[in-house]
């Protein structure tokens, strides 16, 4: 469909935080259909690896910007903007803890991305120490993680950036195999919380904070035995030996971060930079409104849409934090709100009953009575 418009580009941010058991998007890239549907409705969709990464499965969305969580926080705060690029030179960091056979699997995935997708990868780096990933679950039920040797990760990233000219970084860290654990069994059944999500976010956050460069992470794990009763939402992560292809595809066109000092004035829309004040709407799970990015966006004109059907382990509603939001039940309804917002239509007008217009009562003495 071709449409001529004099309206500014409409930009939406889709957030499904990782490691909180989101019923949609808490598993193997299973919020990707939501992203695809929203991308069809807006000029630009900003979303993050947890939404778009399905291990070997991914979907190139020409109007979507793949932005890691720390970068999203900075964009929401207005500190950084997003500058779309035709392509990135991706540098690969492999954790020294990865065994030789698993390392070969990652390298073959990288070579496959070069040969089959034509992606531009630089030479790779092996960290000078094992990264030492540890997984943990907090009292909220959210999964988090710590890295024993973050300096080694950052030294590897510095090598790629300063010696090779890498413009985006993919990290593969050896994660603990927890075969047989209740958490993994639940995850394979499409229930519970992704035990890896929180630690993955920490790795990419460290790199983005230090270097202001796109980064995403894929874990290295031993392949699991066949599970015939695997849940569809978890299935994408059991198709092969690595989780790397989606990360490389996402990073290949991830936007670069620009600071306020680097901001190009008089630019708007996909051809230029995108800043927080151009984000028209943000869509989040209704009980996960406590993210840094959402708190920061809630001070802006961004329309926040909360989706009740996407339940998580959090209990933080928009109302409990004083965030003004439109509450809907499903992503289907959220897409309807986006359509109305983009068209300048009040969603109330699409309902069968519409109250009569009311007179505003000025909150000071001597104001006139209302005509109701």
């Amino acid at each position, binding site marked *: 469909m071709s449409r001529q418009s004099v309206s500014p580009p409409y930009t939406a941010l889709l957030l499904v*935080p990782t490691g909180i058991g989101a019923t949609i998007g808490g598993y193997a890239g299973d919020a990707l259909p939501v992203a695809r549907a929203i991308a069809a409705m807006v000029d630009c969709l900003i979303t993050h690896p947890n939404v778009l990464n399905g291990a070997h499965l991914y979907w190139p969305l020409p109007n979507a910007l793949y932005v890691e*969580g*720390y970068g999203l926080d900075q964009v929401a705060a207005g500190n950084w903007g997003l500058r779309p690029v035709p392509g990135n030179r991706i540098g*690969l*960091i492999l954790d020294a803890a990865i065994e030789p056979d698993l390392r070969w699997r990652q390298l073959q995935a*990288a*070579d496959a991305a*070069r040969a089959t997708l034509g992606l531009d*990868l*630089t*030479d*790779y*780096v*092996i*960290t*000078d120490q094992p990264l030492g990933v540890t997984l*943990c679950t*907090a*009292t*909220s039920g*959210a999964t*988090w*993680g*710590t*890295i*024993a040797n*973050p*300096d*080694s990760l*950052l*030294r*590897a990233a*510095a*090598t*790629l950036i300063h*010696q090779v000219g890498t413009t985006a970084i993919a990290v593969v860290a050896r994660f603990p195999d927890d075969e047989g654990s209740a958490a993994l069994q639940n995850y394979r059944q499409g229930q519970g919380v992704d035990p890896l999500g929180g630690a993955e*976010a*920490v790795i990419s*956050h*460290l790199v983005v*904070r*230090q270097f202001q460069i796109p980064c995403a992470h894929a874990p290295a794990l031993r392949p699991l035995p066949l599970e015939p009763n695997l849940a569809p939402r978890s299935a994408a992560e059991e198709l092969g030996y690595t989780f790397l292809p989606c990360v490389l595809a996402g990073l290949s066109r991830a936007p670069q971060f620009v600071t306020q000092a680097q901001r190009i004035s008089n630019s708007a829309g996909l051809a230029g930079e995108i800043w927080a004040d151009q984000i028209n709407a943000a869509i989040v799970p209704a009980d*996960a*409104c*406590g*993210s*840094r990015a*959402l*708190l*920061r966006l*809630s*001070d802006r004109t961004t329309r926040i849409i909360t989706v009740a059907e996407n339940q998580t382990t*959090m*209990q*933080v*509603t928009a109302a*409990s*934090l*004083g*965030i003004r939001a439109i509450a809907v039940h499903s992503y289907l309804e959220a897409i309807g709100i986006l359509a109305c917002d983009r068209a300048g239509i009040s969603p109330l007008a699409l309902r069968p009953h519409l109250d009569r217009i009311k007179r505003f009562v000025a909150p000071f003495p001597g104001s006139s009575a209302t005509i109701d």
Partner: protein
Amino acid sequence: MVTHLVTAEVPLQDSPSAMQQVIEAALVKQGTPLRWAVTAVNLEQQTVLVEAIVTIGEVSTGVASALVPA
């Protein structure tokens, strides 16, 4: 540099921007906030619970990693 999982309980604020400032001020006492989220709100006690990863210390440059041709 080291990474730590920490928690903080802070007073509920009137606005999201004030909430964010109070949270970051509380977390800075335990390190440099890397990633955080409000994970529970107690309306009776008027408090929020925050879980976070903070970093402590500076980045050590040390030995450079070896480059390997792709």
